[in-house]
């Protein structure tokens, strides 16, 4: 398959031009990191919160 950047195209990140898609991936991966960090930092909080 011919692999050329389309005329007038924006710069590509990993082969993707549309910033909406790039941001989508960034948000998905970023939120996963946030979840991992949250779980790690709060792993001992809330013990016996139900008495």
């Amino acid at each position, binding site marked *: 398959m011919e*692999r050329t*950047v*389309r005329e007038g195209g924006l710069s590509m990140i990993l*082969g993707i031009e549309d910033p909406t*898609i790039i941001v989508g991936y960034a948000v998905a991966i970023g939120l*996963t990191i946030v*979840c*991992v960090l949250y779980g790690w930092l709060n792993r001992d909080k809330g013990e016996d*919160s139900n008495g």
Partner: protein
Amino acid sequence: MVETWMFWVIVIIYMAITLSVGYMGYKKTKGSDDFMLAGRKARPLIIGMSYGATFVSTAAIVGFGGLAGELGMGLIWLTALNIGVGILLAFLVFGKRANALGHKLKAVTLPDLLGKRYNSPFMQYGPAIIILMGMPMYAAAVMLGGVNFLQVALGVTKDQALLGFVIVTAAYVIGGGLIAVMYTDALQGTIVVSGMTFLLVFTYFTLGGVTTANTDLTNMATLVPSGLAGQGMTGWTSFPSFGSPIWLTVVTTVILGVGIGVLAEPQLALRFLTAKDAKHLNRAIPFGAVFVLLTTGVAYTVGSLTNVYFYQNTGQVSLNAAGGNVDQIMPLYINSATPDIFIAVFTVVLIAAAMSALSSIFHTMGTAAGFDLWTHIRRKLRPDADVARNSRTTILSSRIGMGVMIVISVALAYIMPASIIARATIMFMGLMASAVLPSYAQALFSEKPSLRAAKASLVVGAVSWFIWTALVHNAESSVLGISNFLLGQPSALPLPWQNIDPLVIGFPLSALTLIVVWFVDKHYLAEKEVPSNGRSESAQ
């Protein structure tokens, strides 16, 4: 075609391990709290993996993966929302409060939690009825996700695949309750994550690397079928044109419908009630998030990239290669592109994904019918009988409820049309979000929740969702034919209304109703405080 003996060996090993784990759950089930809530002491890894495995089914992999094959990588925003809302917001904001309230009220299901919080039988059997009306369709969609793949990959009949799923899943759900469900979920979730990770690596490797594959897909924008291009699709690595019919479908139906609908899913909310305390929920969050990223994120990425593979090998884009059936894109890709051993392994991945979701759906439908609804029916039939929750009775009636709902779901699976998996999933999530989410949120966050507001919200949400589905949203209204019968046209309203998902109408109406009625009711709440310790019947 995969070697038959290879498939049977792998599947038999998988089924044996699953049933063994399920049997362990059966042996540990001593009372109704074990059957309904896994004893209220599930471990964080089990909670996180079970939540993820219940959330992500063959609907996500086959249905939405296929949808990504048709509409492109814009669906990655659904993964973002699933993690941001479905994991982070759900656990942190809804989950901890639901866990605390569930322990305080000794609630064992979401409808039970609502009924006790509002001190209202209606708020228990009302949501239960909504679950029983919408969930069989979702169950059928999950079944079809696995069946479709098996038919393509292995040449088995629909009957054989369907019955195989149902019999094995029903055995450990009905026998072992939620302990069996959650432990098998963790096993199945591990299988799914492993398989999907391999699929992503294999796909990018086969297509020449991440940048090469994505560039090829970007350069295929001119190959978008004219029908889709006319509705706003701009390519598989770009978002649809703003405000176009496909943009409305992707944003309102797929992203919002599932992204918000997840908050009111009864089988997911149940996981919050199984944790001992907030600490266990905190520890479960990373497992759930990583699971969702590595399953849905991979499905939508690989789904989109199937276009590159099919174009390079057949000269067709994915949708055309699959004969116009979105649900066949992923099965066809797996069967065509991957080695035989992976086809066999991926068969187990899909079986695992289907069973983990199905088991939770069966369990929730069964308890909705056999506990949440049956308790009130029994009270009506025998007003003088002692309806205090009895452990043995609860388990028995829930098992019977499961059996009945499984039969209904299987029947639905036979009559549902093609390309229905993602849509049926979205419909159920939209119904639950519209009808239940506002009153659920009020139950968790309001100091003095208004019963009138909750009831009004439930009714308005359910009715408005149904009316919009039946009469306006073209994807359903044109098929149901009610609008055509009454008005002589497939949809009661013109574009763009007929592309707006019922959730976008039902949920705001339901929420607005709750707010308005709460304010009106506020003047009366000072005299009649809603008791927070539940109804008179005691729970074991």
